[in-house]
């Protein structure tokens, strides 16, 4: 029914002003804290460690007062592929194959063992946790706050030629245009559908790709033109790169930020320790 409503699937860069404790934290703390947590979760190989990671992500989502269904929506488009991966992992049991495994069910090359079940649970838990953590950053911080945070964190690397301010600007504009492009694509899909295009129809991949031409060509042209217009508008307002710019959004660290960072880092250490002890 909402076949054309692309914005429905665009959760990246969406700010949800629920004004929680996490919203009020310094963006630098959020970037560093969530980044470290994400790394620690990726490092987990056991089901126990992964589930612990997922639980910590869920706790943060609850703390941010974000509706869990909204937070998980970013997973919806890739759900079929995830399900397929999980099935393969479950049946073919790549990786963990040892004498400790108990075979539960077997059919041809498919072998479901206690190890593969554990591995699938661990995989899914880690993936969901990662999606939640990345969404959490944009749900609780405005894009410009994130950009300012990235810029500040990159500043030490400016000496070796990393253009921190420009990168932050690129980041902001890229995400600023995600909803715009989604709306533009939606409009083109609708316009061509109104002229009889059957964009979903057919199973032949070549025919399906050809059906996309009427959408992709104008999308590409319009995007190029739009970026040119944007560049002109930015130039007209005196933008010439990062040098000597001042900033409306000011970064301010408070005691709560230090406390939050210490707690998250302590938890990261715990997660890493769990992994090391099991490995």
């Amino acid at each position, binding site marked *: *029914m*909402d076949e*054309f*409503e692309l*914005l*429905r699937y665009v959760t990246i*860069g*969406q*700010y*949800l*002003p629920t004004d929680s404790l996490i919203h009020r934290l310094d963006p630098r703390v959020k970037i560093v804290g969530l980044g470290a947590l994400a790394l620690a979760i990726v490092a987990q190989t056991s089901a126990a460690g992964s589930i612990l990671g997922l639980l910590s992500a869920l706790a943060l989502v609850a703390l941010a007062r974000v*509706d869990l269904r*909204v937070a998980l*929506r970013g997973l919806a488009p890739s759900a079929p592929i995830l399900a397929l991966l999980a099935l393969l992992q479950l049946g073919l049991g790549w990786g963990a194959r040892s004498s400790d495994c108990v075979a539960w069910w077997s059919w041809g090359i498919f072998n479901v063992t206690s190890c593969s079940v554990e591995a699938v649970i661990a995989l899914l838990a880690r993936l969901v946790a990662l999606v939640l953590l990345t969404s959490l950053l944009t749900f609780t911080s*405005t*894009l*410009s706050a994130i950009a300012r945070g990235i810029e500040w964190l990159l500043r030490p690397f400016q000496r070796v030629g990393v253009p921190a301010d420009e990168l932050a600007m690129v980041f*902001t504009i890229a*995400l*600023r245009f995600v*909803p*715009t492009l989604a*709306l533009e694509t939606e*409009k*083109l899909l*609708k*316009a*061509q*559908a*109104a*002229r*009889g*295009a*059957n964009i979903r129809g057919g199973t032949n991949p070549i025919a399906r790709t050809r059906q996309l*031409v*009427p*959408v992709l*060509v*104008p999308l590409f042209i*319009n995007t190029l033109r*739009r970026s040119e*217009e*944007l560049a*002109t*508008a*930015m*130039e*007209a*307002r*005196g*933008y*010439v790169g990062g*040098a*000597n*710019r*001042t*900033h*409306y*959004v*000011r970064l301010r660290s408070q005691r709560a930020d230090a406390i939050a960072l210490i707690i998250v880092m302590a938890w990261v250490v715990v997660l890493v320790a769990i992994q090391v002890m099991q490995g």
Partner: protein
Amino acid sequence: MHDRLDRFHDRDGSAKARALPRLSPISVERRFVFEATLDALIRIENLHHTYAGAPPVDALRGIDLTIRAGEYVAIVGANGSGKSTLARHLNALLLPTRGDVWIGRTNTRDAKSWREIRAIVQMVFQQPDAQLVATMVEEEVAFGPENFGVPENELPARVRAALETVGMWAQRQRAPHLLSAGQKQRVAIAGALALQPRVLVLDEATAMLDPAGRAAVHQILRALHQRGVTIITITHEMDEAAQAERIVVMHAGHIALQGTPRQIFARGNELRALALDVPPIAQVAQQLGLPVCLTEQEFIAALRARAPQPPRAAPTRERNGTGDTIIRVEQLSHRYLRGLPLESRALENVDFDVTRGEAMGLVGATGSGKSTLMQHLNGLLRPQTGYVRVDSYNLAEATTDVRAVRRIVGLVFQQPEDQLFAQFVGDDIAFAPRQFGLDRDAVRERVRWAMEMVGLNFDAFKDRMTTTLSGGERRRVALAGVLAMRPQILVADEPTAGLDPQARAQTREIFRRLRADGTTLVLASHRMDDVAALCQRVTVLNDGRVCARGTTREIFARADVLRASGLDAPPIARLADALRAHGWQIPANILFADELIAALGGA
């Protein structure tokens, strides 16, 4: 950018010119350099501009123009006459191929002064979406001052003052892409004002706005002008130009005419020859033999001075549909992003019907639900609650064949010229008939018919590349691309937005031909005069609900309802109203110039 640097080398040649100048925050003191020559803030001498390319395009061919500090100037001209190119020379976004542009005492060729020039001459562009950088309104407004290194403790005051000037302070925390087009343009103006410019250039900044959005921008411009800001506005709207102190008329890269609005609009025939027009009030005055009038008050005063004359019978024009209801919408509601935090209501219990063969106008402010309703008419959106029937198809039923519906309902989106994709005109127009599986000859016949309907010669245009067409031609190709389905119903969203007066008149002509051919029309427009000229019934939407429906004459006589919906009656109806209020015996429901002239006993 390279282009510019090269020219800079040519003139200067010194080693220090190799890189872009270092930037420094601009102090208030330095700005006064520009005020030294108050009577000629902007001086343009023999300006030529040629765009490189094969073949090169001479956009400007010798412009001489002086603009004084505090002036309010309107630049008008057909599409492609060079208006925007001229505007981009005022803040050194473009540099002259030949000739000079001086801002105060500074030549725009002096690369070191570009930043100072841009702090003084600020610009607002046509497309609201393409000029907003930030993800929050207040940060958007701060962008300019940030670039100029305005101290951080000064930024909040700048942002607040600018947003208060345009009445958007309350929306400071919102995301620009969630605002209406009119609000976006007000934010863009605030972004320019935050730099405290002496000159504000608007490049067709109101072209995409609804009447209320446009009126809000006009009011802001008048206030800024009173404060001493120099206003330069590029526009296709003659009533907008009439507000300026001086009008500059451009044609093919030259200045064809310039003078006060009174002087310019006295030369209606010359303007029409330049693909322009005079505002409706001036036109009526002229046909009654009155002096040039720009406002209703002037018109009334001029009419008082004239000897009274007996009214004549007004010309009659009645056009009706032919009976059965071809579209019926009942109790239709629609919500976007249903079930999400950003869910928004677009339609609420809408009833709407269209008779076969009639032209139905759909009017309402931006965001009132017009587009949403239109997309229900060919099944792009399916009813969430309520009922939609088109011809014999019930769209509320999930099993209905939507492609069959799309075949009888052609839908033309706003700015359809942005949707062309094929290399050649003929192929683009043939897309729809081919999708519906017509054979080669039938496709060719459809394409020929559609091109003739929109006034493009089949043999001359079918093999043209779509990229070489003008904006007006591109829009006609896009329209033909929908007509090639030979739809029984044509639904069009803002078909005349952004067109110059001549292209607009041609578009109206296309719709008249379609009606004569028996096509049912549903037209959404912010232009009440277009609706009055084309439609015999009108439905008014306000905030997702139908707030009035009736014949065009009934609806446009209800000024209160229109105003409450962010709209206004067409200019002639407003003038007739004003005359009635001043005691003239004029029949109600007057919509057109010839009717008003007859009622006043004119020629």
